[in-house]
């Protein structure tokens, strides 16, 4: 038996598309609903574990806060220690001049009395102290003399009175023998009255060796 269908083909196509869209929407709705139900089920099923995790998280938070406080405290202690260390380093870098004074007291003996001990750190005049050194290269040409830098030598100035000229000279020799000084210069000597008799006054300039400080 013949069946005829004169419904326009574009209309049938539109209808097919609409039906397909409806099926898709239904499938998506069902999927969404199932996913939602599954999510809700999981939420209820694992509710206790979530609470325990929250508690652990709170404890961890408290620990972190305690550690933060301790770190802050340690940091302030560290800063104080750093300051103290810097001060100590500063102090340690200064020379111990008391040792020098003790040495001078041992060297002067019974014939010499020191009236004044002073330190002078003024630079020496380079030209007067350092000689000019001439060098020759392999080509035979002479080079310019090297200009010496001014020395910042520390000078120990000793003013005192000796029983005699010999005692002063022996004192100078003893100073030179200590090896502490580059040079010991007798800057000035003179006779002066000392108690009932006479004595030799002197002024010595001792240039300390570099590194002996």
């Amino acid at each position, binding site marked *: *038996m*013949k*069946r*005829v*269908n*004169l*419904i*326009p083909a574009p*209309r049938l196509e539109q209808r097919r598309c609409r039906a397909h869209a409806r099926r898709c929407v239904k499938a998506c709705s069902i999927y969404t609903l199932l996913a939602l139900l599954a999510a809700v089920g999981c939420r209820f099923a694992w509710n206790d574990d979530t609470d325990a995790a929250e508690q652990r998280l709170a404890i961890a938070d408290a620990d972190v806060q305690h550690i933060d406080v301790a770190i802050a405290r340690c940091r302030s202690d560290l800063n104080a220690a750093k300051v103290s260390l810097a001060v100590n380093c500063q102090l340690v870098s200064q020379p111990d001049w008391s040792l020098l004074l003790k040495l001078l007291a041992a060297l002067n003996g019974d014939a010499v009395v020191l009236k004044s001990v002073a330190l002078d750190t003024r630079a020496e005049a380079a030209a007067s102290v350092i000689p000019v050194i001439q060098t020759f290269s392999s080509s035979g040409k002479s080079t310019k003399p090297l200009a010496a830098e001014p020395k910042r030598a520390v000078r120990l100035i000793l003013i005192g009175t000796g029983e005699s000229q010999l005692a002063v000279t022996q004192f100078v020799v003893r100073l030179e023998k200590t090896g502490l000084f580059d040079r010991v210069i007798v800057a000035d000597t003179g006779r002066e009255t000392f108690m009932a008799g006479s004595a030799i006054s002197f002024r010595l300039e001792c240039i300390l060796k570099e590194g002996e400080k």
Partner: protein
Amino acid sequence: MKFRSSQPRRSPIGIDAGPRYFAAVQMDEESPRPRIAAALLLPREQFSAPLSHSEIKPLPTILRRAGFSGNKIVLAAPLDKQFGGILEMPSSDTSAYTQISRIELARTNRCAPDSLEMDCWPVPEIAGKSAAHVMAVGCRHDDASKQLDLFESAGFDAHALDIRAAALSRAAALLPPSPGMTAILDISWPATLLVLVCDGDVVFERRLADTDLQRVHEALVQRLHVETELADYLLLEAGLDAMPGDAPAARSARTILSGYLDGLATELATSMGYATEKYDGVAIMQLLLCGDAAAMPGICSRLGDRLKLATRTISPADLCTAAQPVQAGQSGPAAGNSPALAAAMGLAL
């Protein structure tokens, strides 16, 4: 394990929207034999008025109350918008028949080939012609859409837009098969349609000229000066047998109806003679009457005598066992036995 729905499986609702009635039939598909699940013949609010949305809108509710289920429907294409005929195929390639028929239908109806919907099927060999022939029918998309939009906007789901001739051939196929061709005459208000069926396929279709019921009805009203309802009664229920006597009114009515039936018989004889000649050697063995006027008393014997053919009226009750008492509209004939439901039943099959 098989799950069964509580609702029995039903066919789509066949709806035949005529100028006077909405005929609707739904079949029970679970029954091994064809069985009517619901049937309705509903008079229209305004006879012969064009279908409107306001008229169709309450139809789903009415059908549900009458025992129909579902919203799938099968409609018949309007007869005046449907076109077609027998076309000769230049090629023996059967796969090209549809394309050739489409182009030929578009050419004869002056429209683009893609603006119409059509179908075709081969017919028996035609006398004197060696080429193959097909029966082609079609309808413009615009015309089909108008009809479909009206019903779909009321909530129906149009499953198919069939042709009346194919629906009648399906209904007639419920009868025991007969050799040769079967003629089906559908006498309805807007037109009378002659369909010839051979081996279940429609091989000839023709609208007979000047034989519609509307014309006879108007003649009864004008000549007898009677009310429309009385003219309906004379035409559809009284007929030739129920008007004995020599009263002038009865004589006039008998004259009008006899004249109508004689004219119809003449037209039928001409058309059937043409078809018999066309399909050489295939005789018409029986005439089946259906439509609004097929229940008219005396019409079978009158046409049978004139045409010398076995003639019978087909109604849903004849064609299958009714599942339940069918509903009838208030002013319509008894719907269960009404031949006016034959086309709707064919659409539902």
